[in-house]
């Protein structure tokens, strides 16, 4: 099983920071996400793209996890040499994480 099977994700950008928010389709899968999708695993899974720290916020009221990833966007939208300068694709790369 991969994350894509049980969760959806949105990527946002601020400067050189990528913000990934993760939501289970079913609220009962939230504890599984909290247990398995740690900041360390996100950083390891997206290594190569993320060069800075990853901070995780747990938001039980919303059944959501939020990951703030520093130095993730090749310097930021305007100066990046990447094709996807906003890092929009990072959310779906995260969803390829094996889980369970």
């Amino acid at each position, binding site marked *: 099983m991969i994350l*894509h099977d049980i969760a*959806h994700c*949105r990527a*946002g950008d*601020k400067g050189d920071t990528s913000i990934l928010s993760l939501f289970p389709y079913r609220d009962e899968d939230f504890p599984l996400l909290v247990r398995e999708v740690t900041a360390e695993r996100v950083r390891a899974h997206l290594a190569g793209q993320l060069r800075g720290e990853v901070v995780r916020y747990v938001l039980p009221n919303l059944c959501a996890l939020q990951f703030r990833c520093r130095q993730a966007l090749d310097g930021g*939208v305007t*100066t990046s040499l990447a094709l996807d300068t906003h890092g929009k694709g990072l959310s779906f790369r995260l969803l390829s994480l094996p889980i369970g």
Partner: protein
Amino acid sequence: MRTTRIGSGAGFAGDRFEPAEVLVRHAGLADLVLECLAERTIALGQQRRLTDPAAGYDPRLLARFRRLLPLAAEHGVRVLSNMGAANPLAAGRATAALLDELGLDRGVAVVTGDDVLDRIDPRTPALEDGVPLEEHGELVSANAYLGADAIMPALGADVVLTGRVADPSLFLAPLADRLGWDLADPPRAAAGTLIGHLLECAGQLTGGYFADPGRKEVPGLAELGFPFADVTADGAAVFGKPDGTGGLVTRATVREQLLYEITDPTAYLTPDVELDLREVTVRETGPDRVAVRGAIGRARPPRLKVSVGYRAGFRAEAEISYEGPNSRERAALAGEIVTKRLPAPPRIQLSTSDHESRLRVAALTRDRDAAEAVCHEVEALYTNGPAGGGGVRTSTTEVIGIVSVLADREIAEPAVTTFGPVR
């Protein structure tokens, strides 16, 4: 309890025109907000203004308004937008002239004061890297994020144009105006900021950045409708979209937008408030209707964020394709050759499908000649590289970098200028 309906007619400068028109015609709005100013857009506007003093505002402003403003006048909808970009006064003049031409007796108010380029201390370290502004490159723009308090005095007009303001402030100000809120009351400022944050990306709330076939189905995406919110005086809001439009408003679409671009959900800072999202609840109340409440607000931050643009050099981008057997190897060889021929290694990317490989070469250079030299080496691969190369595309663009600093609120002196009949 007093209620007002506010709609979102654009979430970025390139947004479609039609959904805003549908909102104005069919949704019974009091206010429509068009958010069209991304982080880098204002610096690009400053560049255009340098060559033409009457330019610098959103290039699509007149095309968008020519279709929208007659409808807004007919339905009595106030329109607010940051399409003023780097030249809000010129945008106001152009809009007033358009209203004249259309025979509409409507007033325009322009919020200025965000442009602080001649006041910013170039020695201020950037938040992103701690390096003083002046060491990044020649500064071309510095715009302070103004808050709802700067917009309030403009709300007697039918059309309100701004330059740089915080996106949620464009929504908070008309809500405060309609519902009699005091902006210094953190719970109200937080509620309005949360609503503005959810609406500011328009179609991203109604399924416009959501579909994933087989997992997340979105009906009628080709006729995507844009969102509105019904807001009560206590700050609770129900989000929806016009009946008969495509897209969807669900707990899932609203949650994705709720945390979008929020670097700290415990303290989202705007010029108006410090917003804490931890107690927010998102509940479906009917088809395409979602109720959101629970924003926690703390007093606004003491300083304003200022977005600074600087000349960062030139970006060269060039691509070439190789097809058929061994295409990946030939494209990779082309990348090695061009890297050897250039003075500094460019960024090389290969996109490969079953039958085709496309090589992309990108570089950031200090001047235009160096960027064009990169493009030239890729073009020269036609007859100086591996077999079968075709479809070269090259481009050279000036890059305006963006960094941020914090500055005392006094750096900005907001003012309002009006054109035509304004209450």
